[in-house]
């Protein structure tokens, strides 16, 4: 099954060509000009005249890596009779009820999107799937709007007219790994895979042309701690390779339990028999943090002195802990209102270029729902179903790596932090 139908430059426009375009070789010329300009085309409709007297009608989608190139190319093509398909402005409707959208609202994808306002294509800020598109009062900007945030008087796009969506593009770095796919494979050499993830993270942490660094988001499930990967995650945070962390009550509790008591759900991580009544360890830990009032307070008091969340607090890396109905406690930092939790996650996505999801189903899918397709997303899980699920819910950019998360995180930390990362514990410097 092909994983990629064409290199996917992001800017495209549909144009028409009518007349005796075959016999005049005008169509050939137009297609040649498109290709010579470094753009690509897709014939959408081709109505060929049945006799030499009949005109032909062609609809062509012209795609270009840069919007400016597309504009000048279309201008050049106009001389040869190529016309932009009549474009209409996006239709807007006013929100008439808080928290609900007008009938026929345009539902977004996670791809880069433009809406036509007053004859101008305006890029929609913060691409996110399953949202509406809200337009600023002066019509100069547009952004995604989650349903629950709609307020009376907001103007949102309704219908499909005047909306343009970028085709899924290739990632930066045109290599065999960098394709847009949800392909899951347990057959790939893991060392190579880890190196490619590390390379993506390094690339994000190298200043772009605008001088800004991209952020790396890590999403962690409880198995990160059970598999002994928490110290690796802690090292990555300490090393400056993680800028945002999303998790739930489980990961946070186990991370703190292992840091304070050396157990995870009562089982000693260093080996040996589960301690008596050890199953209650995590409740004692939650209870203790609740006494301190927050994880940061527990760190400040010197009670919590290692682990992934400790490193986050120390390094000032923001984390969002989203709650669920089966949580014990929960920890005081956990946002128990799921809508508020999603909003808190949204608030941390600005600038994220790479997302690494480690052994998490619930939080990986929740994060996938919020991420633009342009974010390089790696989903590491021993269970291929997680990646499939993520892709089925629209996060097609996610690349699945089926492996033990403990091994993966160790190797990733080794690659990014150096082979001696395990020696550089929090108390080692």
């Amino acid at each position, binding site marked *: 099954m092909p994983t990629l139908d064409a290199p996917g430059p992001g800017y495209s426009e549909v144009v028409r060509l009518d*007349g*005796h375009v075959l*016999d005049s070789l*005008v169509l050939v010329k137009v297609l040649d000009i498109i290709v010579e300009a470094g753009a690509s085309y897709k014939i959408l409709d081709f109505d060929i005249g049945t006799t030499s*007297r009949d005109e032909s009608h062609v609809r062509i989608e012209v795609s270009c890596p840069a919007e400016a190139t597309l504009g000048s190319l279309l201008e050049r093509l106009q001389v*040869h009779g190529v*016309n932009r398909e009549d474009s209409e402005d996006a239709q807007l409707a006013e929100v008439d009820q808080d928290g609900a959208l007008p009938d026929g609202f345009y539902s977004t994808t996670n791809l880069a999107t433009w809406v036509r306002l007053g004859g101008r294509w305006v890029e929609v800020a913060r691409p996110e799937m399953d949202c509406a598109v809200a337009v600023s009062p002066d019509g100069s900007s547009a952004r995604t709007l989650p349903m629950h945030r709609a307020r009376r008087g907001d103007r949102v796009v309704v219908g499909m007219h005047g909306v343009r969506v970028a085709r899924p593009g290739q990632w930066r770095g045109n290599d065999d790994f960098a394709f847009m796919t949800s392909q899951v494979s347990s057959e790939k050499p893991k060392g190579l895979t880890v190196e490619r993830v590390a390379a993506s993270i390094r690339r994000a942490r190298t200043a772009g042309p605008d001088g800004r660094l991209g952020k790396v988001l890590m999403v962690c499930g409880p198995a990160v701690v059970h598999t002994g990967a928490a110290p690796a995650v802690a090292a990555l945070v300490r090393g400056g390779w993680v800028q945002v962390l999303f998790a739930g009550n489980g990961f946070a509790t186990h991370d703190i339990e292992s840091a304070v008591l050396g157990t995870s759900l009562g089982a000693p991580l260093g080996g040996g028999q589960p301690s008596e009544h050890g199953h209650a360890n995590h409740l004692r830990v939650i209870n203790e943090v609740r006494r301190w009032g927050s994880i940061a307070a527990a760190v400040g008091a010197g009670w919590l002195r290692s682990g992934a969340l400790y490193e986050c607090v120390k390094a000032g890396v923001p984390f969002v802990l989203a709650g669920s109905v089966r949580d014990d406690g929960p920890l005081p930092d956990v946002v128990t209102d799921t809508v508020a939790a999603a909003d808190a996650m949204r608030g941390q996505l600005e600038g994220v270029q790479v997302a690494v999801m480690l052994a998490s189903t619930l939080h990986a899918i929740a994060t996938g729902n919020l991420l633009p397709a342009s974010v390089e997303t790696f989903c590491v899980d021993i269970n291929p179903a997680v990646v499939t699920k993520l892709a089925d819910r629209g996060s097609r950019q996610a690349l699945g790596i089926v492996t033990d998360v403990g091994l993966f995180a160790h190797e990733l930390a080794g690659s990014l932090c150096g082979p001696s990362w395990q020696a550089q514990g929090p108390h080692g410097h």
Partner: protein
Amino acid sequence: MAIDAKGPGWGRRLLMCEPRFFTVAYEINPYMHVEVRPDPEGAMGQWAGLVGLLQQAGASIERLGPVEGLPDLVFTANAGFVQGGRFVASRFRHPERQAETAVDVAWARSQGYVVEEVPGKEPFEGAGDALPSGPRGVVLAGYRQRSSIQAHAGLSRLLGVPVRSVELVDERFYHLDLVFCPLDDRRAMVAGQGLDDYGCRVVRSLVPEPIWLEGSEAAAFCANSVVVGGVVVMPACPPRLGRALEAAGYEVAVAPVGEFLKAGGGCRCLTLALDVPAPPAVAPAPALWGSA
């Protein structure tokens, strides 16, 4: 003297306009320089000479009355495109010539033509940019310099014949009649210098035996000739081209039009063919039910 079997099958009835008010009053092509004015008497003399040669070749000349202030009205090829009883009026690209259209249309109406206009607003400069080519009624049409390709589909619908569009890539050859001169069903003089590869391929598909012009021949406006039967009335005819035309069975008559070249026009530009036949009617579809 005309050899009847030769020729494109049209061009024996021509519209011309006396150059009484002809001058170079503006610059809309690379040949025009307002400081290089044509000599009025010289122009009148050259024009009369051209009329004489055309009549000698067997053409009948109809007259469009000159109008003061419209110096380019003499270039009747740009008035429109005549096919059968239909006059498709031009829509000039340059404002300097747009006032000519009212005069052209008034003349066409007075002669009983059905006056039509290519739909839309895109420029179309008549027979200067549209020439019937070959036996199947196909019209070759130039675009980019003056006429717009956007007018070609509408022109095809009006005329009921296929229009093949070729891009004019060189501003020195700003009208199709500077690069293409149909001779008969198999031949045409072609200045490939004014076309691109696509255009040359289109011409080859219509004209099995093209006579390609050399650079100096194209620059001397050799393609801007009027073909009346077997006689080619040309602004100039270098020996090589003369031999090629004679070998193809044509007689050459040179009509010096140097005064008009100062405005960027040659022999063909000074004439408009009025006898391009309408295409044969498409056979009506058989009746779906029996006739009474």
